[in-house]
């Protein structure tokens, strides 16, 4: 925690407890935490994510009370939850759609971090822990999707576990070890259930570290300059408890629309068919939040290279603090970086669309195109390749080069100065020292 504690025990009991377990002091300091006063709504997604994690854990523990993690019983027990368990349908739909809401929030949270340079010194470890949370989230979501034991669950599990078979020599031993058999089967489902129950608590532990690492340097902010003193901050409570609470309420409206009006919109109809090891569904797609990576995987014609590219795409996120050479945190003052960033967001969305289509589908219907190397130029293969390439170019070339070459706009001296120097505020504030290259 930064700054001395401001907590004053008021009662005899509080004084007694404070000497033995200063838990009230700890909570009071958390609530009183000095937070930059200029955080916008993009900063509310941290709170939204904490809410999502609690929702998933609570609904998940309830579902586990009614679920049977065996190959023979899993599919039927999910039907049992949906039809027979009191309010089972509601709790399951909250849990299933909650995973999607969790990912919507985490992607916005990550894009916010990239745009405002929240990963830059001294917040590299904070970013790394966040990236680790994202990785464990992906593992948790993947295993959770296997549990209903429908066709898409089964074949998704098969395709993803087969990624490990790309590893030379030891690959097949690893897949057989993951499966506990010669293929995805009941033992696989059992262990996925066990791990799906465990990993959310691992995430909770990582979240504690994430918040700890946040509280050492304090929040970043939209202007990207360091907090200069008390005049730049407000206490977390009530200012941001209320702001986060309002954002969570708005987020819950969207969440509720999915749960009550289109609970299956983000799912796949094939998962309403019980897992069958000898019939592959005509079109296997992962859940929407994995589609960009799936597109990158399929864009590469070689198995090992494809798996490597997918892993590399995730690795790029981890090493971002050491790729970005710009000293200016916020892209508000980096007009060129802003353009590349928005194009990067667009590339991720387009890759998502590519991942949802079959590789040979025509992008523009009715246009025959021509074959370039191994695939039609008018197929999703080539669209995936172009935008997949941009994904890597953004991280590995644009981000390091741009910081060295661009001329950023002048960065304000303090968090307050852009407000005071705004044309609407009568006396023009002192112009900030222009932040020069690098």
């Amino acid at each position, binding site marked *: 925690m930064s700054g001395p504690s401001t907590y004053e025990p008021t009662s005899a009991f509080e004084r007694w407890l404070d000497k033995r377990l200063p838990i009230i002091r700890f909570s009071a300091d958390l609530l009183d935490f000095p937070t930059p006063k200029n955080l916008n709504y993009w900063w509310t997604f941290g709170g939204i994510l904490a809410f999502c994690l609690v929702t998933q854990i609570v609904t998940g523990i309830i579902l586990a009370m009614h679920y049977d993690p065996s190959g023979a019983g899993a599919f039927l027990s999910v039907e049992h939850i949906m039809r027979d368990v009191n309010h089972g349908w509601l709790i399951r739909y909250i849990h299933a759609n909650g995973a999607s809401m969790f990912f919507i929030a985490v992607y916005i949270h990550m894009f916010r971090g990239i745009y405002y340079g929240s990963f830059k010194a001294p917040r590299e470890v904070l970013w790394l822990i966040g990236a680790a949370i994202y990785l464990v989230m992906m593992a948790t979501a993947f295993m959770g999707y296997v549990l209903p034991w429908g066709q898409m669950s089964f*074949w998704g599990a*098969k*395709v993803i*576990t*087969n*990624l490990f*078979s790309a590893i030379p020599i030891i690959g097949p031993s690893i897949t*057989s*070890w*993951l*499966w*506990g*058999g*010669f*293929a*995805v*089967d009941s*033992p696989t489902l059992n*262990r996925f259930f066990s791990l799906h129950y465990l990993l959310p608590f691992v995430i909770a532990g990582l979240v504690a570290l994430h918040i700890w690492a946040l509280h050492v340097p304090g929040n970043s902010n939209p202007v990207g300059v360091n907090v200069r003193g008390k005049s730049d901050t407000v206490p977390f409570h009530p200012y941001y408890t209320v702001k986060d609470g309002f954002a969570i309420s708005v987020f819950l409206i969207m969440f509720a629309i999915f749960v009550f009006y289109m609970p299956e919109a983000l799912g796949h109809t094939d998962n309403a068919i019980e897992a069958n*090891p*000898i*019939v*592959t569904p*005509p*079109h*296997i797609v992962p859940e929407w939040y994995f589609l960009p990576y799936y597109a990158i995987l*399929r864009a*590469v*014609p*070689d*198995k*090992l290279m*494809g798996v490597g590219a997918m892993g590399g795409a995730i690795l790029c996120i981890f090493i971002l603090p050491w790729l970005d050479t710009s000293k200016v945190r916020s892209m508000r003052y980096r007009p060129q970086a802003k353009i590349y960033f928005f194009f990067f967001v667009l590339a991720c969305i387009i890759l998502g669309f590519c991942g949802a289509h*079959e*590789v*040979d589908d025509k992008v523009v219907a009715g246009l025959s195109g021509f074959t370039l190397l*191994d695939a039609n130029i008018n197929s999703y293969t080539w669209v995936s390749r172009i935008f997949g390439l941009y994904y890597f170019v953004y991280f590995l070339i644009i981000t390091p080069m741009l910081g060295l070459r661009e001329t950023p706009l002048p960065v304000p001296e303090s968090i307050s100065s852009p407000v005071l120097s705004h044309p609407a505020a009568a006396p023009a504030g002192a112009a900030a020292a222009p932040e020069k290259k690098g």
Partner: protein
Amino acid sequence: MADSVTGATSQHGEDLKDPGRRDFIHIAAAAAAVGGVGAIAWPFIDQMNPSADTLALSSIEYDVSKVPLGQEVTLLWRKQPLFVRHRTPAEIAAAVKDDSADMKDPQRDEDRVKAGKSEWLVVVGVCTHLGCTPAFGGGPYGGYLCHCHGSIYDTSGRIRGGPAPKNLAVPDYAFLSATKIKVG
């Protein structure tokens, strides 16, 4: 130890005289910890490998005469699809013709079937890319096509195009009689 220690300085002096005694205890304790963790780690890792009852169900028998010419059956072997295909002379000829063609995983057709039984193609129906089940009758070679990621196999189950690295696996099997095979 204790009775030989008469004071702090004496203990210190003893250390200087024979530092090896303490080092030995440290090294022995560390070695026991490393060895113990290593020894107990293996059972915890190996428990995830296929269990004895899973391994016990690993072979099946099948009467191939039930498959008419030009058709195939999909059996479940080790919880995976197993194709038993009764190939037509045209399919065999197409496979043999390409024996010397440029392939990712070169193999002759006769090495993928039993001698004198080239009409029977027995392969594991698991795409060597990411494990989908390919379907017969697609792709330019008239063999199998995996629609997940577009891997193309010929009438011998050899990989001819797409991302898969290997031919469809031929399991260990033998003809027990003229028409009965035992797989696994």
